């Protein structure tokens, strides 16, 4: 089942799990200790995050560790570049709107 990434980050517990896993890989039990919830609830959140491909499992002996599927910090710059481009697009559109309303005013 394909899930929406927004679903993954819409829940505060899942955001907390992501924040913890950003620091280190953890087992479901270790994660559960950080939340006022059951291990079963944490497992459910982990399943959703796994389906979103935001975390992956790694077996170490009998334990299952979850780790974040996130690239290194330098990649943030790539994202910021896209954010910047979106603002450029937005402002180009604003320029067009301003040109249109100015023309309408001038014609009156």
């Amino acid at each position: 089942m394909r899930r929406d990434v927004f679903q993954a980050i819409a829940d505060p517990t899942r955001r907390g799990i992501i924040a913890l896993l950003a620091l280190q890989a953890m087992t479901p039990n270790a994660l559960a200790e950080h939340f006022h919830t059951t291990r079963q609830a944490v497992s459910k959140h982990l399943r959703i995050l796994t389906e979103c491909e935001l975390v992956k499992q790694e077996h170490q002996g009998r334990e299952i560790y979850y780790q974040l599927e996130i690239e290194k910090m330098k990649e943030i710059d790539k994202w910021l570049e896209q954010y910047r481009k979106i603002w450029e697009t937005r402002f180009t559109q604003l320029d067009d709107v301003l040109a249109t309303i100015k023309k309408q005013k001038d014609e009156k």
Partner: protein
Amino acid sequence: MQMDFIVDKQTKTVSITKEFEYNLSLVWAAFTKPELLDQWWAPKPWTSRTKVMDFKVGGRRFYAMVSPEGNERWAVQKYTSITPKTNFKFFNAFADKDENPELPGSDWDLNFSEQDGTTRVSISIYNESLERLERMIELGFVEGAKAQLKNLEELLAKLLQ
């Protein structure tokens, strides 16, 4: 005209400055009238749909960014300060379709000034949680890296609301 775009992680602020070759009244109107905002706020092919907008201190703009497929990403902007044709501030939070905000949000501060018929707009966006900003950025990249361009656009749209 050139746009300045600066991310300051220390102050958890994104600053965007741009000049427009139009007078202040026109630019101010484009930022404060819903029928004009909806014409440019969403980067194409997204569209902006303002459901409620009451531009006064304590008032709000409740609107959606709508994808070409019709998916809606709602947000609410609550006006905290307005100095006509000079400055306005709002608190932005993503929301569900029933206007329940998803916290934390971000504080926006927009400044307007005119010189020789050119209007300068300076926007600063403060995220109370830089972790939130970075996490969203990281998530955005994960999606992008997987060539899920459509999802990335959705995420960007959600971020820039």
